[in-house]
């Protein structure tokens, strides 16, 4: 026997493949992750996309600009209002329309309510992913109130289509202000409850602290945005650096954490709940009177050229690129979705961790699969 044979153990272990998804409780949709695993330790992660690809960008080339708005609901369905707003802002930019102040303020209030609803859902699902099932119902209790407000205002709870190029589809419901205020008072007492239930839990802290650390450099080079990047200390809030709608009128802080781990990403979102509440609070009393839309032509034709507009959705930076040749349909539409870039960091940050960690990391990245596949 040589020295080498003596040192090496006779038993050998093998790496194996496992398909996490397309049907798996932790992938929140139809995402497939091909994992290479050694025991419980993940050696490699390869996301396999395309299970819910509906060629939304191609469909946009067929549709008029009013119709495109409706398609964007189905991308990141949890921030449907913000997606709609992004397209409307692009079209308005191209047409050089100045929308009334009232529209801007209402759009901002609803966008922030959407963000709260989205973060609520994320918080519930995050708890479920790490095994605390009760969070889901607490979050849905509060999200339900927002959905009721939306339903009263525009008839839909999730895919809202409240924006149209040039303004809003209808005026707000007479109860809107009252109910938003009710919600704000209710929700301010509930965020501390979220902290008591999950944030402070020692098991939760252990599960997330130091897990899936994304460095600032990596966050920038992968193009991560939203809470994922802000958890790593990258200042990337579009509401701050390129303000749109009514964000210039309000005071709010960009939430930044520098640790870059799952807990930092978690804390960013919880803090953002407070910031969104503050924004809504500042605006809801000061909705200016005025028109709810600028009249546009029935058939909108954008001037020849390229147009780009960025907005901050609940998941990060959504960019809308429209290339127009001057006809009633766009020549090419491209959405820069936050989910796609955020998902790309997963192999970098989850390699070498356990299966349980991967689930927690996936949850803090907060992917919405239709947003990745479009």
């Amino acid at each position: 026997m040589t020295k080498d044979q003596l040192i090496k153990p006779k038993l050998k272990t093998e790496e194996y493949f496992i398909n996490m998804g397309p049907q798996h409780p932790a992938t929140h949709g139809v995402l497939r992750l091909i994992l290479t695993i050694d025991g419980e330790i993940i050696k490699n992660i390869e996301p396999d996309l395309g299970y819910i690809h509906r060629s939304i960008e191609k469909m946009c080339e067929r549709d008029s600009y009013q119709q495109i708005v409706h398609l964007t609901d189905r991308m990141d369905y949890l921030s449907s209002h913000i997606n709609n707003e992004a397209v409307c802002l692009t079209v308005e930019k191209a047409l050089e329309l100045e929308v009334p102040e009232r529209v801007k303020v209402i759009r901002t209030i609803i966008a922030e309510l959407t963000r709260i609803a989205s973060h609520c859902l994320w918080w519930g699902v995050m708890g479920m992913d790490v095994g605390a099932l009760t969070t889901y119902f607490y979050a849905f209790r509060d999200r339900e109130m927002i959905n009721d407000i939306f339903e009263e205002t525009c008839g839909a709870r999730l895919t809202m289509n409240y924006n149209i190029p040039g303004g809003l589809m209808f005026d707000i419901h007479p109860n809107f202000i009252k109910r938003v205020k009710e919600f704000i008072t209710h929700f301010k007492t509930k965020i501390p409850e979220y902290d008591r239930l999950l944030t402070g839990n020692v098991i939760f802290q252990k599960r997330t602290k130091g897990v899936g650390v994304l460095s600032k450099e990596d966050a920038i080079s992968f193009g991560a945005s939203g809470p994922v990047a802000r958890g790593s200390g990258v200042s990337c809030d579009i509401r701050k650096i390129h303000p749109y709608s009514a964000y210039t009128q309000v005071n709010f802080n960009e939430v930044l954490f520098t640790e870059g781990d799952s807990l930092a990403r978690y804390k960013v979102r919880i803090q953002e709940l407070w910031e969104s509440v503050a924004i809504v609070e500042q605006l809801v009393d000061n909705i200016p009177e005025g028109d709810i839309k600028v009249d546009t032509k029935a058939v909108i034709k954008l001037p020849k050229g390229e147009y780009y507009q960025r907005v901050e959705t609940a998941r990060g930076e959504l960019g809308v690129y429209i290339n127009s040749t001057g006809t009633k349909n766009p020549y090419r539409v491209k959405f820069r979705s936050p989910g796609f870039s955020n998902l790309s960091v997963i192999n970098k940050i989850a390699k070498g961790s356990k299966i349980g960690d991967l689930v927690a990391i996936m949850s803090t990245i907060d992917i919405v699969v239709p947003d990745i596949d479009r």
Partner: protein
Amino acid sequence: MITYLSMTKSIHDWLFSILPEGAANITEMVLIALAYLALFAVAGLYLVLLERKVAAWFQLRLGPNRVGPGGIFQTMADALKLVSKELTSTDRIDKFLYNLAPYFVIVTALLAMTIFPFSKQLQAFDPNIGMFFLLAISSIGVIGILVGGWASNNKYALIGAMRSGLQTISYELSVGLSILTMILLTGSLQLSEIIEVQRTGGWLIWQGHIPAIIAFMVFMIAGTAETNRAPFDLVEAESELGAGFHTEYSGMKFAYFFLAEFINMFIIASIAVVLFFGGWLSPFGITEGITWFPEVFWFFIKVLVIIFLMMWFRWTFPRLRVDQLLTLEWKYLLPINLVNIIFMAILIWLNWTL
């Protein structure tokens, strides 16, 4: 309590009067087994219902409320559905082991249940090595989970099974050692004897004060881990492994695994009640003098309180990661337990027990 005694005694006498001795013995055993099976089924089903109601209460919802008044027949209906379901299996499984696995789990759970003294007379089997028997029997259950996970030919099931193996083997130490700490105090492994000790000196958690409380806390943590319940439900870990080791099981075979989990919870709670809270003894002896009072009541009330505690854990705590699970056991619980045993021994030596 007189009533059970006279009832069982008259059945016993009647059987022996009409049958030859051998046949009467066998009939009696079968009757006792049937009674335990019935208890098993009812306890299992109603613990599931209780779990769902408690979960609903924690989660701001109503829980099952459609089948029967307040939903009390919900789990019966579920069980009926599971019985009538086809037993499917996947391709290229180890058929023999796959079919055997659920029985390992359910039979061990049933065996462990036989030795509990529900009241002074209601005990099927009282060996003088009672606690030892319990530990031995409850260790066999994990074989069923390992075998089931292995035979399913599914990687998720296998990961779940392997996790179950390491979890149960690790936490068995803590369960055993915390039981041992209390055995130092009772000086007997026989369950009826353990309860007799508490009749005069007060419940063991009172007699053993500080080390007993530590032992109780360790026992509750390790016991929850033994039953594979949250926050130690890595074996199933639905957000990580789908359904873990029973992913590929359907119908009644799945139901066996599912029921066994609840029966195991009942067993752990019963051990806790016998060892720390005086079994069927009433608190402060308030029903000591009342001869007709069913002492079973106290036993079940105490068990339900402990079970409620375990459900409370489940619906509020996140799940541990697999390495944290092992760290907790080997780096914290085991050393605490060993020190605690010595502490208890010194206490008894110095006669400082209450």
